[in-house]
């Protein structure tokens, strides 16, 4: 008894939530340690029992870059605003890789942790958020190669990289998290997501200026093109790191707003579906 009187236990009210549930981000804050633990677990386990280990974080973007370099750089000779093709595409492959990895990991994060979901209460948002953030480690490793490439090609970023890069990182995370929330919540009920995802990311790659420059799109289609939030992210990275393109313009704001819309709707959709996760998973 003495132990109980020491601190007043918090009272929890359990009742059906109606309509759009309050986001309850406070709960997420209470469980912030769990987010770190999940990220840590993801990273710790990711390259277990692989021969090459963390080298995979570098091999994937570098190999893609080499293939792109051959096809689009040497054979098709895609215009790159005067930047050497390898660094041009690699700069774009970094946020793209982050995005694809986030979708792959996060869309499965709920279903692969179903024993947690059916047994314990914790804010379910922890799982997709941790999956997306865990991708930052691979991103950081691959980024080292970019620095090497920049030295090799003698490309130096302008000073604005100091504020622009973190902002575009944030935009990349917001975009990835927004889409990931939608996919992970849908995947709980409809495993179609597993089958649609490879196709979706492949298709998405074509409409994102990773292998080519956004400038090849004619002026009047630019705004339509920027409806793809990843276009804004990729252009932003190129602008921040290589000084390519025209920097923050109308198209970027369109992309960024779309990202934000996806994130906010994703959060609400996720919270709304969360009620039945344990029953349907």
């Amino acid at each position, binding site marked *: *008894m003495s*132990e*109980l009187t020491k601190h007043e*236990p*918090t*009272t*929890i*009210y*359990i*009742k*059906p*939530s109606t309509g759009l549930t309050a986001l309850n981000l406070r709960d997420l804050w209470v*469980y912030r*340690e*769990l987010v770190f*633990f999940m990220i840590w*677990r993801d990273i*710790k*386990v990711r390259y*277990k*029992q692989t021969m090459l280990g963390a080298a995979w974080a570098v091999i994937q973007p570098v190999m893609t870059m080499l293939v792109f370099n051959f096809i689009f750089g040497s054979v098709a000779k895609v215009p790159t605003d005067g930047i050497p093709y390898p660094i041009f595409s690699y700069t774009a492959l970094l946020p793209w890789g982050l995005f694809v990895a986030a979708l792959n990991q996060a869309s499965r994060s709920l279903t692969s*942790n179903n*024993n*947690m*979901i*059916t*047994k*314990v*209460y*914790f804010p379910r948002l922890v799982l997709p958020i941790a999956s997306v953030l865990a991708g930052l480690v691979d991103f950081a490793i691959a980024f080292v190669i970019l620095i090497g490439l920049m030295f090799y090609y003698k490309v130096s970023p302008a000073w604005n990289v100091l504020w622009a890069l973190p902002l575009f990182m944030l935009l990349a995370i917001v975009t990835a998290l927004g889409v990931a929330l939608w996919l992970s919540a849908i995947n709980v*009920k*409809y*495993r*179609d997501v597993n089958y649609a995802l490879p196709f979706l990311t492949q298709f998405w790659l074509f409409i994102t200026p990773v292998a080519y420059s956004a400038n090849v799109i004619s002026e009047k289609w630019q705004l339509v093109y920027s409806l793809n939030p990843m276009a804004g992210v990729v252009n932003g990275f190129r602008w921040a790191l290589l000084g390519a393109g025209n920097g923050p313009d109308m198209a970027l704001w369109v992309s960024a707003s779309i990202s934000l819309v996806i994130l906010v709707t994703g959060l609400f959709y996720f919270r709304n579906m969360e*009620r*039945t996760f*344990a*029953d*349907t998973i």
Partner: protein
Amino acid sequence: MTTAIKVENLGKRYKIGAAPTKFKYGMLRDVIVDTATAPIRWARALANKQPLLEDQPNYIWALNDVSFDVEEGKVLGIVGRNGAGKSTLLKVLSRVTEPTRGTVTVRGRVGSLLEVGTGFHPELTGRENIYMNGAILGMKRAEIENKFDEIVAFSEVEQFIDTPVKRYSSGMYLRLAFAVAAHLEPEILVVDEVLAVGDAEFQKKCLGKMGDVAQQGRTVLFVSHNMSAILRLTEEAIVLDKGKLLMRGPTQQAVDYYLSSGQAQAGERLWDADEISPNAAPFRPIAMRLKDQKGKVIDTVRSIEPVTVEMEYRLEAPLTGLRVGFYLSSMRGEYIITAFDTDDAKQYEKFSARDSGHYISRCTLPADLLNEGRYSLGVNASTFGVQRYFQDEQALAFSVDISGAPGTQWAEPRQGPIRPRLDWNIEKVE
């Protein structure tokens, strides 16, 4: 005394099997169709003045208008047969799933032994998993560090603490998992039948831990099919049946009520469609019966007469390796017999592959087998090592009357569940 848990008009509705013909696969296509036709169904429902939430055929109320409260420091037992809503109640209390109706007010953290091993990752070491698991259960890092040594000592896996848990034996794994859950020290502890796992020694430890928790003035909810455990560990109990709270009272009364009204259906147990999990397919239990030699269904067995146990079921698809059997256990939860219809080698050869169809598996228990008392029969349909299709450990209960049995000339209770007629030979040597 303050109230630790207050449950008011709690209801939880599940969709069952969805409409069997349509929407079977939970595919996106189905949703599109479902959404497109929704307005029509709503309009129909409105026209018929049928409230949408109410008893539609595809829905089942796993909990229906359940209200009770538990005072701080009390140990409450929850009894009821399979599908009565016990697990759903625990899930709602531990916030795993949301109720459809009603409210629960809980004072303090709810920890459950449902959570054993949640989030354990085979590649991580024991040490890492303790931290991981603790975080999932809502413990702060500092809290885990404080209790780390205690957890390790309790789990008895000190030597292997830096070994990945995938190399652990299942017993070690379970002990470690339980140790973390047991040290969560929640204000309210919810215990389901996980205690059934692990060796006897460890089970004793677990029950001991549960006793400690209760001693410290924490509130415990204890769910079990084991009536003797319920009687031993709780003072009060509630009885659930088909989602409804039937009664609440001192444990002895509640257990008596449960045994006499809830499950003993005059020697016969019939299964409704809504009581069978979809996972049972293609096995569909129909009935379990106890019959005397004339074929009459009975619920009191004379120990000096043989009695027939009968299981009626349907196979909706051919099955290979199926065995249908029963458990016979005493009301104190000790198993007396476990037997399957294909135990015999010849039977096994003949029936190891069964076509779809309607079956009855029947066996006769010999006379002079059981002692006086109440017993329960459970049913199990499974393929060895592959899948358990259906299991109900307490399908029906019956009493044994011993008039005429050996030793009844002395009016005294005899120890032990069996009372065979033995051949005594008395020899005068001198």
